[in-house]
C-alpha cells in the first residue's frame, strides 16, 4: 500500500529529446490512475520511471515514504504488466508466475502455494504446465497479470496491457482488471491511449501531452470540463467540434456568441476578453431543430452509425458534426436549422487554447 508522488520530474535523453518536462503528481493509496495521451506524450516513460526501468533525469519520485530515484526495480515494491506481456517463452505458466519469487529466494513450497492461489483466481490452474506459445492472447494476458499479482506489490503498473487484444476480449479483460483492483485495493497506474479504457477503469485520469500533464480529474470531469482545447479534442468520440466565433459582452454584462449574423446569448462565467474565441461543442450536443434552431447549415454528408447518424454540416463556411437520431429523415444537400445545447458549450482562448468559460447551469464546483 503506497502513495506515489512526483516532484518536478524530468526525463531527457542525451541532450536532444526532452520527453517528460517537469511533472508534479500525487497518486493516492489504493487509487486507480490512468495515464492517457497520444503516442509520444511521455506517458509510458512516466510509467517506466515509476518502475525504475528509466532513470530520472531531474526531480524526485517517492513510493510510500521512500525516495526511489536510485532504487532498482526490485527494491521498489512494484509489479508491472507489459504491452507484449513479456512472458518468458521457455518457462511454463507456473514458472513464469513464480519467476520473481524464485529470484527473491522464496522457498519452493511457498512459491507453489502462492502461484496456485493466483492461478485459481485467474482461472489459470489447468494451464499451469503450458508454455506461453500454447496460450491464447487472453490467457497470456492473464498470466502476465498473475505474475504481477503473485508478488503482492504495493503498486501495480500497466503499460497498454490490452492493446494487443481484439475488441471483444479487451472488454472482458477490462472488467477483470477492474475486479482485480477491487479485490486487491492496490495503487495502480495504467497507461493507455484508449479513452474507453481510461473512462471505464480510472478513478482518476491524467491526460498528458508533449511531456506535460494537460489535466487531472475524474473521467466525468475531464469529459465534461476539459480545461484545454487539447483535452477537449482528445476525449470523447466522435471528437468535439471547434468553430471560430466572436464573443460580445454587452454593457449589462450579458455575454453572447456571434457567428456571422447570428447572435446567441449565453450564461456563465467567462474569463476571457471580448473578441475571437474557439467554441467547442460535442456532436451529441448539436440538434436539428427546424423551429427554434438558431443556425442555418447545409448537410454535407451523412454516416449511419446504427441508432444514430453522424451528419457533417457546413455552417457559414465551417464544418460541424452532429450526432442525430437515425430516425430523423435528412438528405445530403438539405438545409437544416441547428441548435446547440448551450449548457454544454466550451470556449477556448485562441492563443493559449485554455478553457475560458464555465456555463452557469453546469457548475460542479
Amino acid at each position, binding site marked *: 500500500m503506497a502513495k506515489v508522488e512526483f*516532484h*518536478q520530474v*524530468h526525463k531527457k535523453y542525451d541532450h536532444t529529446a526532452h520527453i517528460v518536462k*517537469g511533472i508534479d503528481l500525487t497518486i493516492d493509496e489504493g487509487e486507480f490512475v490512468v495515464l492517457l495521451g497520444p503516442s509520444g506524450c511521455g506517458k509510458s516513460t512516466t510509467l517506466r520511471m515509476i518502475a525504475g526501468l528509466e532513470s530520472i533525469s*531531474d526531480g*524526485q519520485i517517492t513510493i510510500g515514504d521512500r*525516495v526511489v530515484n*536510485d532504487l*532498482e*526495480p526490485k527494491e521498489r515494491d512494484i509489479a508491472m504488466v507489459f504491452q507484449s506481456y513479456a512472458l518468458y517463452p521457455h518457462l511454463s505458466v507456473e514458472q513464469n508466475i513464480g519467476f520473481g519469487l524464485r529470484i527473491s529466494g522464496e522457498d519452493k513450497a511457498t512459491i507453489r502455494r502462492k502461484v496456485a492461489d493466483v492461478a485459481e483466481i485467474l482461472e489459470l490452474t489447468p494451464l499451469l504446465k503450458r508454455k506461453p506459445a500454447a496460450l491464447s492472447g487472453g490467457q497470456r494476458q492473464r498470466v502476465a497479470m498473475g505474475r504481477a499479482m503473485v508478488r503482492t506489490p504495493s503498486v501495480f503498473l500497466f503499460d497498454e496491457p490490452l492493446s494487443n487484444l481484439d475488441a471483444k476480449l479487451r472488454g472482458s479483460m477490462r472488467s477483470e482488471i477492474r475486479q482485480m483492483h477491487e479485490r486487491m485495493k492496490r495503487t495502480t497506474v495504467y497507461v493507455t491511449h484508449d479513452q474507453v479504457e481510461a473512462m471505464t477503469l480510472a478513478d482518476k485520469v491524467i491526460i498528458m501531452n508533449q511531456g506535460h500533464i494537460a489535466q487531472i480529474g475524474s473521467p466525468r470531469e475531464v469529459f465534461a470540463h476539459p480545461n484545454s482545447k487539447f483535452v477537449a479534442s482528445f476525449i470523447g468520440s466522435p471528437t468535439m467540434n471547434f468553430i471560430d466565433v466572436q464573443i460580445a459582452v454587452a454593457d449589462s454584462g450579458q455575454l453572447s456568441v456571434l457567428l456571422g449574423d447570428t447572435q446567441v446569448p449565453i450564461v456563465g462565467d467567462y474569463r476571457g476578453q471580448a473578441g475571437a474565441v474557439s467554441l467547442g461543442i460535442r456532436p451529441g450536443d448539436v440538434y436539428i431543430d427546424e423551429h427554434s434552431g438558431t443556425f442555418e447549415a447545409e448537410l454535407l454528408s451523412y454516416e449511419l452509425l446504427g441508432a444514430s447518424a453522424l451528419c457533417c454540416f457546413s455552417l457559414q463556411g465551417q464544418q460541424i458534426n452532429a450526432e442525430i437520431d437515425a430516425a430523423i429523415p435528412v438528405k445530403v444537400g438539405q438545409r437544416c436549422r441547428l441548435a446547440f445545447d448551450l449548457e454544454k458549450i466550451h470556449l477556448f482562448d485562441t492563443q493559449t487554447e485554455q478553457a475560458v468559460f464555465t456555463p452557469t447551469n453546469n457548475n460542479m464546483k
Partner: protein
Amino acid sequence: MEQSIDVYPEQKGLGGMWKRINQQGKMTTLLLFLPPALFLFTLFVILPLGEASIYSLYKWNGIGELDNFIGLKNYERVAGHSVFSSAVVNTLKIVGVSLFIQLPLAMICALCVYQKKWSNTVFRMMFFLPYILAEVVAGLIWRFIYDGNYGLISSFTEFFGLEPIFVLADRGLAFTAILVVIVWKYFGFHMMIFIAALQGISKDLIEAAKIDGASTLQTTLLIKIPLVRHAIVLSVFFSVLGALQLFDLIMPMTQGGPGHTSHSIVSYLYTFGISRMHIGFGSAIGVILFIACVIFAFIYQNTFMNNKAGGKS
C-alpha cells in the same frame, strides 16, 4: 525550473555512485563478461599480427635474441622471389575461377533447387557435402582421382589407350587440377547462400513479373538475380578472402609442387617461412597477405557493402 528538494538523500558519496552505475549488477556483469573474450582475442589474434610486423623487419629463426634488424630486406626478398610471384598469380587464378566459374555454377544450381521440395533438398545436401569435408580429406580424395596409375583420370587414359598422365606432377596441369577441386569443394557453400537469398524473394514479385509478361528467363535475369545482389556481393567477398587464404587443400595434393608451381600465398608462407623457421621472412609474407586482405576488404565493403552490417557496429 523549480528547485528540487533533498535529492537522493541516501545516495551520496562513492558508494552511492557505484550503486547508481551498477544498477542491476550492470557494471559487475560488464566487468565479468567482456574481459575474457577481449583478453583472448587481443593475445592470440591482434598481438600476433602486430608482432608479425615487427618480426618481419628482422632475420630470425625463432630461437635466441631478436637482434638482427634488416629493415625491409625481407619484403624485398619476398617481392623478388619468383615462387611468390607464381603464388600470387595462382591466387588470382583462384579468384578468377571462383568468380567466373564457381559462382555462376552455384547460381544456376541454386536457381534449380531453391524451391522447397523434397527432391531439391536431396540435391542441395549432396552439393553441399564437399563443403563440410575437411580440406585435407578433399585433397586426398582428389589426389587419388588424379593419380595417373589408379584414379579416374587413369581409367580415361587407359580407355583411350593413352600414356598415363600424372596430373599433379605436371607443371602445366597441377594448379588447374587444384582449381577444379576448389570449385568442387566450395560451390555448394555459395549455392546455399544464394538459395537462402532466393527463398527470401517475395512470391508476389515473381508473379507480378509473370503477369507483366516476362518469360522465365527474363524473370530470372531481371528480377531474381538483381534481388539477390546482396548475396552475390557477399559470395564474391568470401571467395576472394578464401582464395587469399587457401592452404589446407594444397598440402595433401601437391604441397606446392611440382617445382613450386602450385603454391598459394599461405602454402608459400608455410613452406618458406614456417617449415624452414625463417620467422622474419614468413612474417613478411604474412604481413603482405594481411595488407592485401585489409585493402580488399576495405575497398570492397565501401564500394559494394555500404549499408550492410559487414564489420560495422
